[in-house]
């Protein structure tokens, strides 16, 4: 065991990741024990919020990286 903090030691980071996966699984299972008050039919679709959160995050990053950045990125001294 090294003394490095969690986010710098890959071993410890992997252990943290496993805890995270476990927590995500619990979150998904918890959905079956609650009563949703949905406004829209698709909210009742199982894991809708989880899927939406994941997909939207990826879409956001891809658009920002591949569409927006090439469009607006300039030298740091562009305005000087």
């Amino acid at each position, binding site marked *: 065991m090294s003394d490095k903090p969690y986010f710098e030691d890959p071993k410890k980071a992997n252990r943290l990741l496993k805890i995270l996966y476990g927590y995500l699984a619990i979150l998904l299972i918890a959905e079956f024990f*609650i009563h949703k008050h949905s406004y829209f039919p698709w909210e009742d679709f199982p894991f809708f919020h989880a899927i939406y*959160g994941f997909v939207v*995050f990826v879409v*956001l990053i891809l658009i920002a*990286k591949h569409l927006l950045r090439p469009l607006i990125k300039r030298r740091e001294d562009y*305005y000087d």
Partner: protein
Amino acid sequence: MISPLPPALIFIIGALFIPLFRGTMKGIYALIIPIVSFVSMMSMSAGNHWNYSFLDLSITLFRYDNLSIFFGYIYHLIAIISIIFSQHVKNNTHYMAALIYSGSALGVVFAGDLISLFIFWEMMALAATMLVWDAKTKESYGAGFRYLLFHIIGGLFLLAGIAITIYETGSAEFNFIGLKGLGSWLIFIGFGINCAWPGLHAWIPDAYPNTTPAGGVFMWTFTTKTAIYTLARGFPGAEPLIWIGAIMTVFPIFFAVVENNLRKVLSYSLMNQLGYMVCGIGIGTTLSLNGAISHVFCHILYKALLVMSMGAVMYRTGKINCTDLGGLYKSMPMTAVFCIIGAMSISAFPLFNGFVSKAMVVDAAGQGAMVVVWFLLMFASVGVLEHAGIKVPFHAFFAHDSGIRTKEAPTHMLIAMGVTAFLCIFTGLFPSYLYALLPYPVEYEPYTAAHIVTTMQLLSFGALAYILLVKYGIFPAEMRATNLDIDWTYRKLGRLFVRFCEGPLTGFREAMARTSQRIVKAAIKFATDPLLVPELIVKGAYVGIYKALTSLEDQRRNERLHQLEAKLNYLRGLKETGRYYGTDMPKRPLGWGVLIAFALIFLYMIVYMFRVG
């Protein structure tokens, strides 16, 4: 008993005495002002106070009702916190500008009429400009000018709208305005410029990151939230606001993803959060208005917390770019914890205050069956997590270790951040205290099992996406760069325009001037000797005809021709020198000419009048 002054006047008059204090006393004196003002505000009763009459219009400097007092509470609270955070600053400009800025924002919020509202509105823009310039850098100098120009334009929209509205209604009272007619639209746009609507927003990412660490805390709070207040008062339920708000929540998050400067990220984050409030005001139901207004309260707290933590980082390290920072949790652990609390709050995790206010707006969109708006707001919730929830704390305090070792933030900053962090969690845990202050009755329970689980799913799987994207190297690296925004139009096209004015436009003007000078000169010459040109033409023609008709052998012809040509040359010479008529010519003073002209005009008038009669 003397009735206490309105908060705005306490702040503004108080600010004038700042230069009398030295060193530490300056900051302590500045801290007393909002406290005195708060006590004074609390001693007032509901209703209109300090009513005056101006040009038959009634002016009300202090309107105490459910909506204005709510802003009064949070503005005083954040003014106190920001001044605690400012204690290391020793210069007059900062405290005077900050106090006048906060005071005029309070003036707008408590103004019962459009005239005093406008005066405080403009004062706010001027004081904020001073706060930008107080950073005393080259960037802040330019950004301050652009800020001022933008807000002067906004103020002119507002002024025109107010003038039309007063002309049409005969009253300057500021209540529900609604979108009806030109005056109301101009006021709407005037408010919208301060609210940083899409396209009118570039002054935020331009000016705010260029402020000082302490000045920024004030900037991020007052101008935009005051605009939210005026929209909530004047335009609740205005349908365009729903779409403006929804777009505002979404488009800045893309810019925030690629931005390197963390305070610029917080600028885009500000716009994204304002979007929820604007959208809530647009939906216009009791739930959505309560949501928008409670979001003002929560947002001011957690955004101030994030801005303060980034301010502390900037104060200690002098750096603010992702590419320069990292690993600061080792030197500034408490600042890191406060930043994370702010990040959790803005991302609306349960137990933090963003959760209890944002949900009301999103739910109101759901209740109204607004499918697209609902999807956009949910999308933006994930976007907040990315840029404010993860990016800001991660790149400043964790990420790759930049090797920077510094001291923890000074005590006064830690106190300011600690109080704010406490309030973020407190209002998150016990939302009923916040809901009790809202202008409309609240029947809302944020902590339902369904709401907690769905929110946690949305955020946690967003975070999972982040981890996976980083792990597989898809996540975009931070880069040193200038990212363009709409301010490009006036910073680059503006320069082109100036160049166009200097080059072609000035050339055209000069050509015009030369031509008109020539025309004038010719006209003067003609006027001094009107007969010369006809004479030249006639004589010239005569010489030509004489030459053509007479035969070459004629002896007298050459003599005659010689005489004629000499005369012609003499006349040509006169074109340059002018004819001398000799002293025996009758001369009349200039007055004669004028008299004759008048006589002719008079004559013409009489003829004309007879003709018409």
